[in-house]
């Protein structure tokens, strides 16, 4: 494994992330996966929305695009359409992808366009200082849920699977080696790959919910994670507070830009034969 520092814009440091934030661990996993995959640095585009997680694009030395809140996937779709040769990675937060960008997520998954999406899920809007997100568990506290969250969170992997994503996996900042493996498989996969990476925001989510500092939150990720196999034998109530890690979907389905290229080829041949 090479040195991931060559993928960092170190001249742009220090970064904005708080001490103990899980986002740096996840970004490290992304860079290791890119390194192991041996991708050509010049041919990788990393695209993000808005949020603490989405600030990752500024720190990495690829073609990087920091877009508008929730919209990384449609920007990525346009780029991938005209540059199908490029490897496109989307880095996004849980608010970015599950709230304002939720519609884009399901449609990118449905098209099965070759984009690898990594969601940094810290169960909160970190950047705007701790409001609840669609990933905040019921009854947890947030600045806009001072009496405890009344809403139910998404199961993001189930959502992506149902929408048609062809590679879907979940891991955590604690299980960084497993996470790196899944991101690597996502990069190698042809089609829409979706990796949910459970992160921690000690500054807002941790403090509000008295979860302790970053080490305690990572401990919590370790203690509460179960595999897909373990989850199968558990009652729904038992599973509620657990993080189910593993690969949910891994299947081969025609990829959108390849299908489009075939159309162009077909029309071109018809033009010649006329």
């Amino acid at each position, binding site marked *: 494994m090479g040195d991931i520092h060559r993928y960092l814009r170190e001249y742009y440091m220090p970064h904005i992330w708080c001490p103990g934030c899980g986002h740096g661990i996840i970004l490290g996993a992304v860079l290791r996966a890119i390194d192991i995959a041996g991708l050509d640095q010049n041919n990788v585009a990393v695209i993000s929305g808005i949020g603490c997680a989405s600030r990752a*694009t500024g720190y990495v030395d690829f073609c990087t695009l920091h877009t508008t809140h929730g919209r990384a996937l449609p*920007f990525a*779709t346009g*780029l991938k359409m*005209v*540059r199908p040769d490029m490897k496109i990675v989307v880095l996004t937060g849980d608010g970015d992808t599950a709230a304002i960008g939720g*519609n884009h997520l399901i*449609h990118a998954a449905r098209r099965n366009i070759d984009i690898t999406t990594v969601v940094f899920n810290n169960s909160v809007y970190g950047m705007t200082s701790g409001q609840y997100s669609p990933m905040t568990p019921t009854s947890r506290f947030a600045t806009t849920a001072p009496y405890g969250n009344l809403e139910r969170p998404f199961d993001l992997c189930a959502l992506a699977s149902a929408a048609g994503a062809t590679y879907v996996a979940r891991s955590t900042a604690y299980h960084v080696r497993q996470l790196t493996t899944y991101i690597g498989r996502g990069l190698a996969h042809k089609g829409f790959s979706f990796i949910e990476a459970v992160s921690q925001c000690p500054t807002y989510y941790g403090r509000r919910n008295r979860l302790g500092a970053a080490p305690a939150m990572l401990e919590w990720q370790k203690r509460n994670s179960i595999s897909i196999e373990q989850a199968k034998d558990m009652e729904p109530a038992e599973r509620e507070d657990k993080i189910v890690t593993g690969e949910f979907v891994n299947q081969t389905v025609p990829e959108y830009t390849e299908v489009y290229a075939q159309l*162009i080829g077909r029309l071109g041949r*018809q033009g010649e034969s006329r």
Partner: protein
Amino acid sequence: MSAVPEPTSAATGRSRLLQGNEACAEGAIAAGCRFFAGYPITPSTEIAELMSEMLPRHGGRFIQMEDEIASMAAVIGASLGGAKAMTATSGPGFSLKQENLGFAAFTEIPCVIVDAQRGGPSSGLPTAPAQGDVMQARWGTHGDHPAVAFCPSTVSEVFELTVKAFNTAEALRTPVILLMDEVVAHMREKVALPSPGEVRVVDRPRPSVPPGEYIAYGPPPGAPAGDDAYVPEMADFGTGYRYHVTGLTHGKNGLPIGPGPEAEFLVRRLSRKVEKAAPQLELNRNELVDDAEYLVVSYGGAARSALRAVRLAREMGVAAGLFRPTTIWPFPFQAVASLAAKVKGILVVELNLGQLSLEVERAAAGHCPVQQYGRVGGELMRPSEVLDALLRLTGRKV
């Protein structure tokens, strides 16, 4: 037998009976557009339908996105990949595009946005003409930003101004709006399409230096010292030039910066680069203005009625003239100002309650009275209505 319809081809070099929306699609292909993302909305939908058919035949790509926000985003992504890109919409969709339109202006990504205006506000009158988005085209997205918008009155002008929209977007690295209205979008006229070689096509300035020397938002090599209105060179993603693009206020290397002189410089430079190009962009198709005592200012579909009214007024002995800007943003301020100093009064004719008339008033600066004649019920004003308004301005009894 082919399973797909016969190809339509851009710029065939012969006359055709075309709808405004068709002329727009033909103009886009002729200008080199190779990516379109859109979401159907009346009265712009034909553009998406035609692009879905024509683009793959020209090696380009079409996608129908999940909404207009996504369409605008995809267009910007494609442009960064090196493709000339366009989207088309109408009022409700134009509203949805505004945030990403501002992103394109701030990050200097060339692209073309067609807004075929329909009756508003809200869902309004989907199949009826309006010109209620004139100020939205200028100020629809938040923050200080440059704006370029062209307004065709005829179908051949739709073709011509679509090409000009792409060329301007590329040359200035800025989004350009083709502001049509339902009249022009759906009307059919005979158009003499130029053959492909006759269309002047402009490409964005691409890097003249190797990646190691490239500064994404720096002045182009050879720019004069102190140039505060430059257009930076733009590298396609995936060509060896690695750089950052962000909607946060950014320095010359593309990375985010905080408040201060560099932020001030960036926002001012973007407006200046368009102001500096304004004289080249200006294109006024005037009729009978040289000896005019009364000036009618009108654009787009409304100008068709205005022109007829001006001719009728001449028959009645009123020295009327039509000032018809096809570039409405940047507004042809000087041209209107100098005419205002010569004429006895100006009538602005537009399908709204007074939008471009505000600019005309500013330019006239009290030199002559300025009145506005507008309609907002989804009906194009008749020449006789405009004539009456003109005669009232002259003080004649109607």
